């Protein structure tokens, strides 16, 4: 076997082109004759569409068309978009029309699209389209939306409640009746966005000669997109090719299918010219899906030793105006609460509510940060009330490694019982505590306090269901050039998918990593595909790469043995050569073998030889792969300004066997940055009319280089026994417990004042308000 790639810090194959400015993002693709689109969007959160007057727009030189719903082809004109994730708790699918029909239900909902020679002209013309609206009452806050007499999010709704469901196991009443202590928390997590630095983008071109519609989209899920386009455009799948070229970050919102991905292809078909649409940042704030936005009322029951007996409560989830991905966010949240702890009984009643805001769908973490926040805030509360160290409180409640596989008692969102496959949660926490010098923190805290500085420490544990199915595919094919072609339905928005899969294939096939020619995110390259979400690609595509690579290895060895007249056991594959260990060590290159594998025209293949050196594997995991981790964070709070500085951040992370530590560390570090944003900065603010107020990076703050320390990351590897690579996902664990740990640390820093926090984002204003209410400033000024 060739160079050892699996587990090595292999430098990324993606980097050189991106560093030289030779990336190929959607807006970098220039097609002759391309036209440019700008959408006309609703300025109101809820309104009836009266009329659309396009006359002033159409007379502008360079304008080719203004397309509203009635100008669209069937079935997309009259049918709403398909819902991808049905759930029995949802009575009726709730998705939008690609262009509004009769009613708009959130600010930014697309109403019409202008197609012009340039984006500049398209924007002029969009401003000249006159839309008459009959403004209706809107509902902004999901708690208000449940109230009797609340305005309806859609005029034809009987109720704004989309779904209610209960996740439960054990005897919850007995758990609470027998408890030594019961503590309650009211928790609020506000919504933020994915905020990839590349906005969404679509370019569509129809080739009349082949009747193939090619769509380049900045998406995480090109194969799903192709299905949606086929449904909405009424075309066969085979006449649509969707390509996700270089994509500038995903983080979840690019996993769902958007109206623009149907409208732009429809415009290209209608006009017979390529059409390009590049979302601007304001549109991204208005129309790209968001997440968090949950209100929790939860209680924990513990015995006298702080052992958890039960957790119960209610969760209200804001779905926004539609539910393109059903109820998976609150479902995942509800299933994530017990986490790494033995919780004897559990019951959570969830209400999913529609509001006149842009829909919520997964953003890095996908419901889990909220659940972990709830559970960890409850744990901190127990520790505080019982005067126990926070780590000790958790230590007493961990599921032990010898209890693996551990059946929680719920059904996870993959449809399978929630069974943790593996993990060592106590070891994870101990590793993180040691790296963070947790033991000596109280001394550091006292010393800081003596100088008038408020520092605090917080921790958060989590278990995350990753690597969700249904499957992902990888094709491996040896080319006559001697290189190895790899195609996958997995996609790449920065995760290093190309590098990771190349490591696996190169090691199996026995070629140089630089001799792999990979096609990623192209429906033309592999028949089936799913895409990037739920930290799923290392598990799904990684295992497919392994299986396809192993199969092609077997084919190579068999063919080489026959060609060289030696035994298969004598053949070794290295650097694109099949080398015999026997005799005078004859060898044959992969290129020659690929030609041999094509056979001779008209001549039968030898018995047992397959056509070509090629295999496609679609690995389908039996259930989720449960990764876990512990975060420990030290913060300093400026009591006068409410400013928070993250001083030190430690992560112990178990994503199973690590394929490339360089990449996994990068995923964790990036995830932590997102979590810091959620905890301290990112607040997508709406007014009472559901009008978004934070629609620029000047209003909605992303973490900067001065906000995010370099994390100390440890890998605690417990091998996943359920898949052949032993891997678990790594893309979201950095984000999931971050807010819980940070808010806990802020509370700890301000413990002299006895303030309590149970919300994110925790902005300086909120901290100062809490300190003022606690009388902190009287004490500080007296001091």
């Amino acid at each position, binding site marked *: 076997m060739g160079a050892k790639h699996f587990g090595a810090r292999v430098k990324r194959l993606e980097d050189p082109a991106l560093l030289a400015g030779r990336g190929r993002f959607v807006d970098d693709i220039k097609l002759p004759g391309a036209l440019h689109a700008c959408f006309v969007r609703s300025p109101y959160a809820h309104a009836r569409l009266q009329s659309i007057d396009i006359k002033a727009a159409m007379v502008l030189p360079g304008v080719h068309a203004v397309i509203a719903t009635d100008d669209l082809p069937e079935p997309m004109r009259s049918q709403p978009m398909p819902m991808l994730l049905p759930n029995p708790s949802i009575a009726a699918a709730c998705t939008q029309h690609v262009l509004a029909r009769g009613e708009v239900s959130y600010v930014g909902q697309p109403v019409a699209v202008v197609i012009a020679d340039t984006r500049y002209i398209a924007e002029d013309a969009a401003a000249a389209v006159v839309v008459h609206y009959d403004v209706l009452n809107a509902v902004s806050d999901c708690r208000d939306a449940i109230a009797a007499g609340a305005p309806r999010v859609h005029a034809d709704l009987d109720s704004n409640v989309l779904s209610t469901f209960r996740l439960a196991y054990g005897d919850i009443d007995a758990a609470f009746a027998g408890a030594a202590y019961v503590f309650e928390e009211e928790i609020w997590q506000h919504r933020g966005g994915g905020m990839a630095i590349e906005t969404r983008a679509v370019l569509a071109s129809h080739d009349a000669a082949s009747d193939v519609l090619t769509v380049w989209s900045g998406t995480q899920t090109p194969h799903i997109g192709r299905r949606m386009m086929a449904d909405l455009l009424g075309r066969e799948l085979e006449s649509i090719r969707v390509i996700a070229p270089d994509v500038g970050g995903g983080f979840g919102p690019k996993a769902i299918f958007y109206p623009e991905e149907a409208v732009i292809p429809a415009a290209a078909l209608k006009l017979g010219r390529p059409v390009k649409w590049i979302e601007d940042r304001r549109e991204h704030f208005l129309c790209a899906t968001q997440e968090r936005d949950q209100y929790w009322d939860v209680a924990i029951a513990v015995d006298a030793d702080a052992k958890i007996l039960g957790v119960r409560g209610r969760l209200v989830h804001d779905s926004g105006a539609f539910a393109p991905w059903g109820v998976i966010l609150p479902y995942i949240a509800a299933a994530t609460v017990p986490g790494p702890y033995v919780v004897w009984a559990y019951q959570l009643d969830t209400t999913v509510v529609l509001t006149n805001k842009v829909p919520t769908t997964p953003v890095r973490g996908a419901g889990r940060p909220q659940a972990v926040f709830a559970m960890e805030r409850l744990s901190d509360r127990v520790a505080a009330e019982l005067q126990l160290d926070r780590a000790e409180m958790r230590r007493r409640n961990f599921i032990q490694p010898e209890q693996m596989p551990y059946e929680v008692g719920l059904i996870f969102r993959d449809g399978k019982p929630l069974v943790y496959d593996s993990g060592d949660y106590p070891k994870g926490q101990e590793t993180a505590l040691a790296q963070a010098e947790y033991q000596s923190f109280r001394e550091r805290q006292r010393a800081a306090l003596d100088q008038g500085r408020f520092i605090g420490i917080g921790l958060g544990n989590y278990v995350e269901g990753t690597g969700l199915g249904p499957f992902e595919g990888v094709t491996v094919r040896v080319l006559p050039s001697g290189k190895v072609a790899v195609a996958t339905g997995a996609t790449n928005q920065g995760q290093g998918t190309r590098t990771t899969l190349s490591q696996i294939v190169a090691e199996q096939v026995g070629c140089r990593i630089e001799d792999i020619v990979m096609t990623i995110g192209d429906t033309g390259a592999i028949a089936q595909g799913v895409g990037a979400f739920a930290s799923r690609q290392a598990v799904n595509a990684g295992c497919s790469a392994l299986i396809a690579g192993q199969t092609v290895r077997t084919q190579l060895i068999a063919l080489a043995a026959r060609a060289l007249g030696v035994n298969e056991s004598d053949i070794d594959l290295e650097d694109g050569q099949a080398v015999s260990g026997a005799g005078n060590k004859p060898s044959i290159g992969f290129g020659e073998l690929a030609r041999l594998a094509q056979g001779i025209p008209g001549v039968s293949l030898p018995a047992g030889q397959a056509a070509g050196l090629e295999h496609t594997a679609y690995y389908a995991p039996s259930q989720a792969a449960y990764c876990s981790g512990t975060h420990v964070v030290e913060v300093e709070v400026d009591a006068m300004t409410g400013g928070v500085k993250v001083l030190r951040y430690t992560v112990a992370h178990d994503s199973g066997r690590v394929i490339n530590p360089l990449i996994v560390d990068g995923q964790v570090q990036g995830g932590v940055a997102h979590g810091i944003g959620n905890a301290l900065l990112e607040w997508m603010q709406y007014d009472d009319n559901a009008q978004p107020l934070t629609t620029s*990076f000047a209003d909605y703050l992303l973490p900067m*280089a001065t906000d995010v320390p370099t994390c100390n990351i440890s890998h605690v590897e417990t091998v996943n026994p359920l898949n052949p690579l032993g891997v678990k996902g790594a893309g979201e664990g950095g984000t999931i417990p971050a807010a819980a740990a940070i808010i806990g640390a802020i509370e700890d820093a301000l413990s002299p004042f006895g303030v309590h926090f149970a919300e994110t984002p925790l902005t300086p204003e909120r901290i100062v308000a809490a300190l003022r209410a606690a009388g902190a400033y009287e004490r500080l000024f007296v001091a």
Partner: protein
Amino acid sequence: MSKQPTRVTVNGKAHARIVESRLTLADFLRHELGLTGTHLGCEHGVCGACTVLVDGRTTRSCLMFAVQANGSEVTTVEGLAPDGELSVLQQAFIDNHGLQCGFCTPGMLITLTELLRDTPEPSEQEVREALTGNLCRCTGYAGIVAAALDAAQRLRNGSGG
């Protein structure tokens, strides 16, 4: 729309074009000259993905009109490795995992090129402060900061990479 003749030297090559007055420098570079390495992330001057050097100073190309660059020398990411050989800083980005999706990267490289030119021995804090004008959503900045410090060291050592 009014048009004006504009002469700009980009990455050492002189260009003379007649452009619309309202055409941004970023769109001029990307769509008139085909230099698509310069990216647009917000078009309101915060994210920094569009950062280029104009007469040696970092500039948001989304907030400047092409006609304002008349007579100027502009350096874009494509100009950092003109002969195909990556610069010391670019190589340090590979070695320190300084990029993930790569969309913010051109702006990061330009900002750090200016920093390392003006401050050959930056502290970590100086690197971080220099980067506050560039947003990255993928990396959490650790690899970028490490790459900048690594590149500074290599440049001081004259090892070139």
